[in-house]
């Protein structure tokens, strides 16, 4: 007996559409033929599945919940994936920007690196008058009275032990006043004297003056030289060279 015929026969039996004789024959066949027996069991269970109306409805609801849960889980996974991908993308873009495009403007670079020179105990020498003038000038410098400080530093003679300091702080005072050309001019005297205690300081501040004046080539030259030196400005000078390259 083929599958189709068997299915139809079983349906007729279960629907009660068989004559008594047919029913009798079928019942005998169902006990002897294992394929009929198995299909009878299955088709009967199919009917039972549908006939339990309440259970069938419950199964439908649970099936919907399961599917909704699966959709929600998939959406959640997708959202997490997209959010992570977006975050990584943004980080990459920002990093790329900072690596390849983000340069400080000259003014920003200047503000980042410029701090007014500290005033240590630099008053040395035997000229007590000069020392008093120098100290007064330094006091004015500390008090940000730059015009008075410049006047005082100018009074220090060239041969004095405070001369280089006076020249340096005069130039710094000009920087504080925003007169960068005059500052550069002052620093140049020190830059030409490698034995001066202010040699590297003068180079550093002179370089910064060139930055604020947008003389990037000159600034690069000065900072490259500082980056190759063993001065305290070496590291910062290297950073600036990278920025203005």
């Amino acid at each position, binding site marked *: 007996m083929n599958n189709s015929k068997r299915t139809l026969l079983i349906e007729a039996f279960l629907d009660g559409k068989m004559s008594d004789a047919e029913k009798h024959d079928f019942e005998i066949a169902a006990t002897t033929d294992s394929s009929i027996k198995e299909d009878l069991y299955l088709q009967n269970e*199919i009917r039972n*599945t549908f006939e339990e109306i309440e*259970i069938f*409805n419950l199964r439908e609801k*649970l*099936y919907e919940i399961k599917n909704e849960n699966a959709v929600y889980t998939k959406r959640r996974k997708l959202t997490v994936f997209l959010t992570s991908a977006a975050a990584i993308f943004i980080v990459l873009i920002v990093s790329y920007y900072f690596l390849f495009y983000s340069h400080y403007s000259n003014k920003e670079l200047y503000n980042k690196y410029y701090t007014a020179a500290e005033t240590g105990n630099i008053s040395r020498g035997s000229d007590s008058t000069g020392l008093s003038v120098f100290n007064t000038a330094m006091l004015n410098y500390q008090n940000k009275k730059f015009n008075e400080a410049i006047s005082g530093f100018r009074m220090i003679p060239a041969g004095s032990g405070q001369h280089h300091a006076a020249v340096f702080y005069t130039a710094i005072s000009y920087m504080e006043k925003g007169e960068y050309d005059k500052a550069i001019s002052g620093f140049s005297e020190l830059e030409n004297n490698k034995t001066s205690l202010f040699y590297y300081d003068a180079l550093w501040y002179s370089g910064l003056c060139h930055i604020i004046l947008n003389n990037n080539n000159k600034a690069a030259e000065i900072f490259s030289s500082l980056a190759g030196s063993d001065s305290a400005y070496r590291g910062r000078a290297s950073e600036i060279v990278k920025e203005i390259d």
Partner: protein
Amino acid sequence: MRNGYTDSEIVKGIKIQDKNVLAYVYNKYRPMVIDYVTLNSGTVREAEDVLHDSVISVYRVMLKHEFSLTSTFENYFLTICKNTWKLIARTKRKYELNGSMEEHNEFSYEDQGLYNESDIIRNLIFEKFMLLSKTCQEILKLYYFERRRMKEIASIMNYKTDMVAVKKKFICLENLKVLVKGNPKYRKTINYE
């Protein structure tokens, strides 16, 4: 969906098949059941079946007799889940269980659900029924669920003659049988019986 329900609200919700309560139970116990089943040689999919079948089992108990909890719903439900998995695992010859969900044996046999091999088959039939085409689902529901005559089915489905409906119903039933028989769970359960 609410964040929480009391035990009596859950029992009442299952009795009236409140979808929010059913979803709450499903989502709350899903992780625990998955842990238990996967720890005991099962898969996540089998754990989903256990959860599904256990809710039906609880519902059957509620249909059969006046139901009242003698412990917390959680204890009761997890016991049902465990028993359900035991039966499924037994039919799969995986009856070496390792525990993890606590033992709760204070329930009567009647309260512990009437889950049996027939339920496994019926759940499988339902699962495969949901995979049939919408037309097949409709025809089989009209015939078995609503007990419609072929003439009515032909009319509802806009078929020209009753014979078209008879043929369609036959094809759909055959498809369903093939899907069920093709599932290893069916063979194992039948052989076990």
